[in-house]
């Protein structure tokens, strides 16, 4: 099959997946106890008022009607309004999402560069001291509760050394109007170095915290995948005919070892979205994670639905991109 057709099919495949996903999320949230009408009107609402509110929210309809209505509104880009704040979920999402995405992308960048580098060196110098230390630290890395790691980073770098701030995205004294919500990009684009430096300082601890687990996972995967490739015959042949070590490792070996690594990176993005909930709580980061957690604790149903759907869709989207990347990474893959 031609590559173009494959990509098109893969993109179209998203539609049923997202539809089923929306159904599952709808059913999960349906099962959460709590009456939105009651939450909106408070404890002292009269039964009539409750009844009217339920009717206007469509809560007196059977669940499949409500699901159909939900999908209908979703297609129009309407996710409803938050019960607690009264603002539309979409506008709140648009406000919180950049914060989380900025954090996740920065964390992923750290995890991918350092993780691949560590795994690469470990495989190259197998059984060296570096290998042992790197692999043991990566095992410790996947064993750490990230919120605790966050505390330790705060105790060390903020409270003891006083180098970095304890939380938030930007110092409150700085007045900076962001157009896209991505503070680092905006401040760099505006050429405002003071703001950019302040934003970067705020970004550093939370993204290290969030990056730890993916970094460890990527390092382990890179190492084992590289080791497997280095044992292949064609590597020996290349070495015999005198290919330079760096070229051997980076071109001959790594290109073939990259596929499992890319898969893991894709899967880690889902982890990042979940880890963001904990990281954002520790570092008072005003993103999706904390917003969603507050929504769940406050039974703010439209927020729970919108937030969960957003997070899960990102995961599905990223994995689609990974699937398409395979074709370019490995010409042998044809569907």
């Amino acid at each position: 099959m031609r590559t173009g057709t494959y990509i098109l099919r893969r993109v179209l495949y998203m539609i049923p997946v997202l539809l089923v996903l929306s159904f599952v999320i709808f059913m999960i949230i349906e099962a959460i106890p709590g009456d939105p009408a009651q939450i909106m009107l408070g404890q002292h609402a009269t039964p009539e008022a409750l009844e009217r509110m339920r009717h206007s929210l469509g809560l007196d309809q059977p669940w499949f009607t409500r699901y159909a209505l939900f999908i209908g509104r979703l297609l129009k880009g309407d996710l409803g309004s938050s019960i607690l704040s009264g603002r539309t979920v979409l506008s709140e999402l648009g406000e919180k999402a950049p914060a989380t995405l900025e954090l996740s992308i920065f964390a992923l960048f750290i995890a991918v560069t350092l993780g691949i580098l560590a795994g690469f060196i470990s495989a190259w110098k197998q059984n060296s001291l570096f290998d042992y230390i790197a692999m043991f630290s990566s095992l410790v890395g996947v064993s750490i509760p990230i919120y605790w790691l966050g505390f330790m980073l705060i105790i060390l770098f903020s409270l003891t050394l006083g180098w970095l701030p304890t939380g938030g995205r930007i110092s409150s004294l700085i007045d900076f109007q962001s157009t896209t919500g991505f503070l680092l990009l905006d401040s760099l684009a505006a050429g405002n170095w003071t703001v950019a430096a302040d934003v970067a300082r705020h970004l550093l601890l939370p993204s290290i915290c969030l990056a730890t687990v993916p970094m460890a996972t990527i390092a382990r995967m890179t190492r084992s995948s590289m080791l497997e490739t280095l044992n292949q015959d064609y590597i020996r042949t290349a070495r015999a005919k005198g290919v330079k070590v760096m070229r051997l490792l980076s071109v001959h070996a790594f290109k073939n070892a990259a596929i499992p690594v890319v898969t893991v990176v894709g899967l880690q993005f889902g982890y990042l979205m979940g880890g963001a909930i904990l990281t954002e709580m520790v570092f008072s980061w005003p993103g999706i994670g904390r917003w969603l957690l507050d929504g769940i604790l406050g039974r703010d149903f439209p927020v729970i639905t919108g937030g969960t759907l957003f997070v899960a869709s990102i995961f599905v989207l990223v994995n689609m991109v990974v699937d398409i990347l395979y074709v370019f990474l490995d010409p042998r893959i044809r569907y």
Partner: protein
Amino acid sequence: MKKLQNFSQRRGLWHDSWRRLKRSRNAGLGLVIVLLIVGIAILAPWIAPYDPLHGIIEDNNLPPFWWGSSEPSLEEVLSGQKAKESGLSLSAPLDGGVQETTVFTFDQGPLNEGRKAHRRYLFGSDDVGRDVFSRVLHGARYSLVIGLISVLVGLCIGTPLGLAAGYWGGRIDSFIMRSMDILMAIPYVLLAILIVAILGPGIWNAMIAIGIVQVPQFARVIRGSVLTVRELEYVQAAKVLGASDGHIIRIHILRNSLSPLIVQTSLTFASAILSAAALGFLGLGAQAPAPEWGAMLADGRKLLLSSPWAAIFPGAAIVFFVLGFNLLGDGIRDALDVRMKH
């Protein structure tokens, strides 16, 4: 026991695996850690020096007795000198976060100068004068039970699903595995939180939630190994001889899927403990006075400035325990030579 002996005489798979496992330094270290924590969990009421739930209020926020003055000077931090330099007190937004603790500790006044402790605290004491060390020891019980039960839940639901998907294939397979994929699209922390929101917070519901979150991983591992075993000649032969599905699954398939299952169980145990602590930290798992490690960290968060030890040690205990299971799982995987698909 007798069966095992038979195996060792024949030097079968298990015997070889055990020999390899014994040689692996990592697995040995992991096993020692796990056994140590299990021992602590069982013996906690007898070895803990003090009551984990009741403290001496005058002894609040005392550092560990060995915590020397060379340690970071809290007064310096509290005087705000370094804080001002780093913009620390200005940086966090006012809603929630560490900012609150700053206010809280300022109200507490001067800390431990000239105070006389009633007891010696190995890991210090928390804000109501409870012994952190005793609480950490008792916390091992929570983590162990949570790990056991949630893994059992995941195993009991995931194994039949994976068996059915792998054995019968076709539509059943696609239906089950696609459902698992959908569940995996929701980050597991979020899924666990949502399930707890359905069931209500509490330690038992947290275990069920974590168990359900683990189901897809178990189903995938089992399905993978069933697919390889199903096509083996002796399974085909058993089928031709008229063995029932139940017999084939029980005798041939399940036993041959045991190695990946053992590895998965050990690694899942590690992640279950982490998830349980995360739920406890978010206030959705074990509830307040219980000395569960995650819940202790939630308490310790308010004390980062005044008594960091209340957060340091419960977290270190989690790392230690989880690391033990990860080392063990890795070691078993290498010993049994299982190739895991992630």
